[in-house]
């Protein structure tokens, strides 16, 4: 890529407090500054409850900051949402069980007023991308967890949003399916050149997938470390390379440091 890299996400002084002033007040995030370049694959990692999902939801304008700002593609997060800049995938695929695989992928397109033919073509293209063309007319309950996640990713990408937000999308999958899905998602990332923000609590997953791992500390959630990962092209052997383990160690150290401090 030769064009100037602009900021896909830019966060400054961001804090989020739930139930402010009440006895059950939670300071979920405090003073977060983060800039994510366009086209980057970034992972957010941290212990459960440290505010990873909250941060992702703030980027996606599904909730609003207590203080600070979130800019996406040089707009407010809310405007970006209205402009349909986001594709989202969560831990549960969230497919509509009354819709076939194709109809599920067509959902966002239908909401955006695409014609039937355009929808059909795009859905077929997306199914091809996630290698599920044979299952076009199946229903979610006829599919495995991994397949459903792939459909959810296809749905998130169907309208070509510039930013893909994923919250532990492979958290409920078994180890083998998980590794397979990681390869797939990298493949998709390479083909589509999206900016991806990926929440996970698995260190190897974060390291294998991303160019950058953001380590978060719990209560209140802060950025504890920002670790660049330079492993080149990911192949099967990457998972066995010494550099891979060095990165894993680095992330683990960052997390351990936080564990001791907190």
């Amino acid at each position, binding site marked *: 890529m030769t064009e100037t890299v602009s900021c896909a996400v830019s966060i400054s002084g961001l804090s989020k407090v739930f139930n402010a002033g009440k006895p059950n007040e939670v300071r979920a995030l405090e003073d977060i500054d983060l800039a994510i370049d366009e086209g980057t694959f970034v992972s957010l990692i941290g212990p459960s409850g440290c505010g990873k999902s909250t941060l992702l939801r703030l980027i996606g304008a599904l909730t609003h900051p207590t203080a600070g700002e979130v800019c996406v593609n040089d707009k407010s997060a809310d405007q970006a949402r209205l402009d349909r800049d986001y594709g989202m995938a969560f831990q549960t695929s969230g497919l509509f069980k009354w819709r076939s695989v194709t109809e599920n992928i067509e959902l966002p397109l239908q909401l955006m007023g695409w014609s039937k033919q355009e929808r059909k073509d795009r859905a077929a293209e997306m199914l091809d991308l996630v290698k599920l063309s044979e299952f076009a007319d199946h229903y979610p*309950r006829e599919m495995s967890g991994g397949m459903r996640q792939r459909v959810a990713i296809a749905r998130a990408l169907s309208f070509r949003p510039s930013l893909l937000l994923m919250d532990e999308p492979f958290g409920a999958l078994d180890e083998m399916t998980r590794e397979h899905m990681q390869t797939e998602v990298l493949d998709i990332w390479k083909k589509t050149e999206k900016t991806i923000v990926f929440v996970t609590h698995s260190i190897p997953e974060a390291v294998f997938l991303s160019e950058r791992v953001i380590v978060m500390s719990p209560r209140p959630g802060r950025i504890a470390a920002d670790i660049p990962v330079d492993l080149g092209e990911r192949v099967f052997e990457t998972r066995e390379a010494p550099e891979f383990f060095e990165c894993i160690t680095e992330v683990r150290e960052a997390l351990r440091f936080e564990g001791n401090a907190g």
Partner: protein
Amino acid sequence: MTTREEAAQAIKKLERAAAWKRTMRRVVIFVVFIILLAVAYTGYKAFGQAVDDAQTQWPVIGRVLPRTDDLTMPPIRDIVAEFGQPPQRNNSKPLAAFIAEASLFTLREATLGFVFGVALGLGIAIIMLRSRWLERGMSPYLVASQTVPLVAIAPIIVIWGSNNLGWLPFEWTSWMSVSLIATYLTFFPVAMNGTKGLQSADPASIELMRSYAASRRQTLVRLQLPASVPYLFAAFKIAATAAIVGAIVGEISGGVKGGLGRLILDFASRYTTGPSRLYATVIGAAVLGIFAVGAVTTAEYIVLSKRKEEPLSL
């Protein structure tokens, strides 16, 4: 053909066979139930008559339990035969034809009432979904509306309908008032279950719709309404019987001619000269109810099996 397609087809075949088997089992259970009912009826009657014949003056039958003479409990073969008998002296039309005509008349009232009731119930459910505050405010009144005795409001509705709806572009006839009475019973289960169904949409799915910047209407139409379908069908089954009961009671208390209600009223007033006529008509009403529920259940099966869902058990 690939092996996968073959496997999929084999599975579909098995599923269809299983569904057929389930339906057949239900039919068999139903028939057996009817036979058992007839046997119990006849058995009790024979037992009562034997007690009578023995002149024991056993005080239970005729005091606590119903009497078993032919006036109170006409023999089943009389009831069955009654369907073929003309109920009017100067008319050779058999009772079955009267019941069939009256059933159609009542079914028309009930169907219209059902459709209105479903529309009204869904409307209320959507309003209640929009605002927790309205839901809390309206629910007690909805419940209270169902405790008002139908026999009291039926004549009011019939009189109101014939006096105040003259401005409508079509002629308001009294059977339409009966439909309104059926509506009154129908909307309630639809409103209640509909609210529950609309709220059953997964919060994560609601967020997903938000991430697509979907409008409230789109969220309703694409997510909340489809999610409520199993709940709605459960309500439709209750509403279908309620519509028919409402129509029959409405005819009786509103004094509307032409339907099962009037037929029941007529035969009840001439009970001593032909008890089995009333029995036969009541059986006709039951058949109509079963037909209505059967129609809804069939629609439910078709819709849900397309979505690979099980009906919601009541």
